């Protein structure tokens, strides 16, 4: 950086800080007097339950999306054209419609009439199960594309070399193709997991009692302001920031390797 750039950098920094500081103080000036953190403390149990549900949903949907992602990827590489085209059409549909629509449509029109009674008879919460399933399909559609791109980015020379050393087809995938694909797609998958955690908040529309749902309930019941929305934001940040950080680290790590 040249000296003039350094000065400009410092000036812009101070300007941004001032702006952020002004915004915060004016918000606190208006809302500060009404902010009562004890309200949040009273509702800690339901907020904590919601937060734990969000984690559970995210982990379950991560597992589910890996399964769906692998299926979508394999489907698109199928030797049968009809499988390939169906897969493509379905993925196109999933990726071109909002998750909110999937959740409402998928729950109220398709799955709830079909499965709710069965799930309840097993003692499972149908909203939770169906919500996780729909979220898994949605994120799986993106994961499938990430995996397909990763697999197709492995150069032909690697397949040739693997065949030349005498690996069988399963061995080629196991020892050569999959390890290299995973290295290439792991940063993107970590990024997708961040989206998945954020998207899980949409499950509130079908009544899943996750973090957003419970926090919103608490806010509307107690007329809370900052003491409701600040924990809401931080509750998600605590989950997503470490994964975003991991994603950036993986990216750097694997960039050095090649």
């Amino acid at each position, binding site marked *: 950086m040249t000296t003039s750039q350094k000065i400009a950098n410092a000036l812009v920094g101070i300007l941004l800080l001032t702006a952020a500081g002004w915004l915060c103080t004016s918000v606190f000036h208006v809302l500060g007097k009404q902010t009562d953190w004890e309200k949040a403390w009273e509702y800690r149990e339901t907020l904590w339950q919601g937060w734990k549900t969000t984690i559970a949903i995210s982990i379950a949907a991560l597992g589910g999306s890996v399964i769906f992602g692998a299926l979508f990827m394999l489907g698109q590489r199928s030797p049968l054209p009809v499988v390939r085209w169906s897969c493509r059409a379905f993925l196109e549909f999933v990726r071109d419609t909002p998750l909110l629509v999937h959740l409402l449509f998928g729950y109220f029109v398709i799955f709830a009439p079909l499965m709710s009674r069965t799930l309840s008879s097993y003692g499972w919460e149908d909203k939770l199960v169906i919500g996780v399933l729909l979220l898994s399909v949605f994120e799986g559609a993106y994961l499938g594309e990430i995996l397909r791109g990763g697999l197709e980015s492995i150069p032909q*020379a690697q397949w040739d*070399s693997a065949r030349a050393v005498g690996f069988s087809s399963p061995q080629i995938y196991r020892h050569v193709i999959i390890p290299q694909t995973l290295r290439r797609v792991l940063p993107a998958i970590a990024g997708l997991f961040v989206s998945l955690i954020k998207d899980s908040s949409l499950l509130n529309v079908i009544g899943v009692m996750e973090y957003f749902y419970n926090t919103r309930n608490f806010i509307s019941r107690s007329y809370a302001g900052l003491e409701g929305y600040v924990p809401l934001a931080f509750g998600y940040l605590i989950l997503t920031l470490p994964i975003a950080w991991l994603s950036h680290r993986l990216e750097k790590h694997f960039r050095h390797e090649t």
Partner: protein
Amino acid sequence: MKLEATNVLKSYGQAQALNGISLSLEAARVLVLIGPSGGGKSTFLRILGGLELPDEGTVTVNSHPLPHRPDGLLAYRRRNGFLFQQFNLFPHLTALRNITLPLEKVHGHPAAVARAMAEESLARFGLASHQHKLPAQLSGGQQQRAAIARAVAHQPELLFLDEPTSALDPEMTAEVLELIQELAMAGQDIVLSTHEMGFARAVADQIAFIAQGKIEELGSPADLFSQSKSEVCKRFLSKVMRY
């Protein structure tokens, strides 16, 4: 090695890569394929190495017809070694692991035995101090040498080399060619394609000139380089030897 090919045809879509290759060699240690790019050297080599199946024609290697079924071809590939122009090594594995992995998974050696064999093979080619490096940390010449170490670690019956130095600068080319010559002198049967005419002349027992998907001429280096009968071959040689 004993090689026999009759009327081998191979096309990729519209492109006719091999146009009826026939060849008969009773005994040769090193067969070198030369000829213009796109003439069919690589395709022929890939068929000999069991990586591709010919559309028509038969190939017999050391009195055994080349298998047609996938499992037979796999067993055939496992007996032999094959080296490409570049990107032979698996970039996510160290040089050592690149060699031990096939020794363990393909040839069924226990880990300790595989490691000893791999270390010996790397040491033989002057790479002992580089065994824990990833391919990206090796020079192009070192990568190629490590790839050769992998291709010969299981003592292959035949070694196929497809333009092994075409992607290297002159200095690295020299170090790789030296190594191939050493292998040939140690008794390894080799089929290789190259554009290095001096090297072809020095190392070959037999040279096949391949152009337009056919063997235009087959003969000893001395015959082929000094009194070539084929016009195409003469023109090619005079062109590449001019500078």
